[in-house]
């Protein structure tokens, strides 16, 4: 227990003097995960809407795939992405391995099914007659999409939070594709694992506190945006 307390104390100390390494690692964590989440939203929400509304052949199969993807083990994603991005791999010419972009890619693959699946469920919940009414009002497919997104903004926000939560806390894939390189691809989660492995439990605990604080702040903001929609 003293490790926990010691860690909390250290965390405040690190934050108070804005330890440059901690700041850098925190900002990188945020940048990588936020980018991955935003990409997933940009692609996942329309994709979820498409699956909810469309009549695609083999739709059932795609939906099962999405739902399976939601629970996909991150380490497998890490392994697959690594193999793809290797010099000898099919995507090796990108030279992405061991860069933050590789982590964005891995985290994108992890969060996309989550955001797609929840968006899809949210839009399927919408009364089909409403879609008919929108068509009757002369809405194009894109316009219908925007109105539906507006109508389902509460569960969609939940999707964003779920997606972000999944990737900000992820360590296996980030470690594998990023390499935990000091100053370049070291993020909070990989740093915590490294410090724990070295036996520096207090430092690891301190970083954990920083991570939890950051996650809380982001989620508090997203929750505010989500709930604000209800008051109007």
């Amino acid at each position, binding site marked *: 227990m003293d490790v926990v307390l010691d860690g909390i104390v250290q965390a405040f100390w690190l934050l108070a003097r804005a330890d440059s390494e901690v700041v850098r690692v925190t900002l990188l964590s945020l940048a990588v995960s*936020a980018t991955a989440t935003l990409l997933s939203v940009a692609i996942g929400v329309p994709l979820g809407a498409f699956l909810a509304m469309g009549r695609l052949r083999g739709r059932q199969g795609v939906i099962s795939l999405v739902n399976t993807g939601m629970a996909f083990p991150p380490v497998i994603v890490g392994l697959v992405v690594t193999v793809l991005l290797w010099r*000898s791999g099919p995507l090796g010419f990108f030279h992405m391995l061991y860069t933050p972009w590789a982590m964005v890619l891995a985290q994108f693959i992890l969060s996309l099914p989550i955001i797609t699946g929840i968006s899809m469920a949210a839009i399927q919940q919408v009364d089909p007659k409403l879609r008919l009414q929108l068509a009757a009002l002369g809405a194009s497919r894109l316009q219908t999409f925007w109105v539906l997104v507006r109508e389902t903004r509460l569960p969609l926000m939940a999707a964003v939070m779920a997606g972000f939560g999944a990737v900000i806390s992820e360590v296996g894939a980030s470690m594998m594709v990023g390499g935990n390189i000091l100053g370049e691809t070291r993020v909070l989660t990989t740093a915590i694992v490294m410090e*724990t492995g070295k036996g520096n439990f207090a430092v690891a605990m301190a970083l954990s506190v920083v991570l939890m604080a950051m996650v809380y702040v982001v989620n508090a903001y997203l929750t505010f945006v989500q709930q604000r929609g209800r008051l109007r």
Partner: protein
Amino acid sequence: MRKVTLAVSLFLGLITALSACAAPSPSTQTRAPAIPEVILATTTSTQDSGLLDVLLPLFTQETGYKVKPIAVGSGQALALGERGEADVLLAHAPDAEARFMSAGHGTERRLVMHNDFVLVGPQDDPAGAKGPSNAPSALARVAQTQSVFTSRGDNSGTHELEKKLWKQAGIAPSGKPWYQETGQGMGATLNIASEKKGYTLTDRATYLANRQILDLSILLEGDPSLYNVYHVILVDARKSSRINAEGARAFADFLVSQKTQSVIGSFGKERFGQALFVPDAGKADPSSVALK
């Protein structure tokens, strides 16, 4: 619509920030090598010792090459070399390295330094491991008394050495209830040993770094069989056009240069009062001695 523009600009800002992170920082000296990136595959214990944090910036300063150290288990480091995914390796698993070289995966292998392992355990030493003069015998005492022994169990260089010593002692500990394979790094394995009042084999550096929180004492040290010898290996550049052979060579040259060797020799003195590594470049290879 305004929210959309906000989100998009946030997004673009993030991408710019990320690109800035990924781009190599401008080198401080005039000559910049054609391909500045060198991928070094090494082990977690090497990284954990902190030596690389000192050496790598020096190397960048001197040559302009930027090293990306990928710290994994010895097995994976060598596998990465085999696939040509790394340019140069820094490993301490002589047997596996020998196999690697004879299979033709590396073009050059040079001795760099060694540190040593120590056998640690509870101060009261119930197994009587302190008595014997060599490691295999000490391990035999541990096995006889069925005292808890924690192993890294992850095919790392440390684990390899440990397995070799058990073999020399003629004991097969795997599967026995007192033999606990953690599958983790040295720091974690030490902590588990400390918690369970057990024994373990560790590199001196990690032990010293964690001495304060551990309830373990050094019971055996100095036995040549406990030497942990580091070699730098140049991966065969013919494996892939992407291998930075010049950078790899520059790194190897750097490691064995006199200046670097003296830095290696003084590393740790400040923090622990004793040097952690013994620079060996140009000397007789202690691993060939220990192999006998």
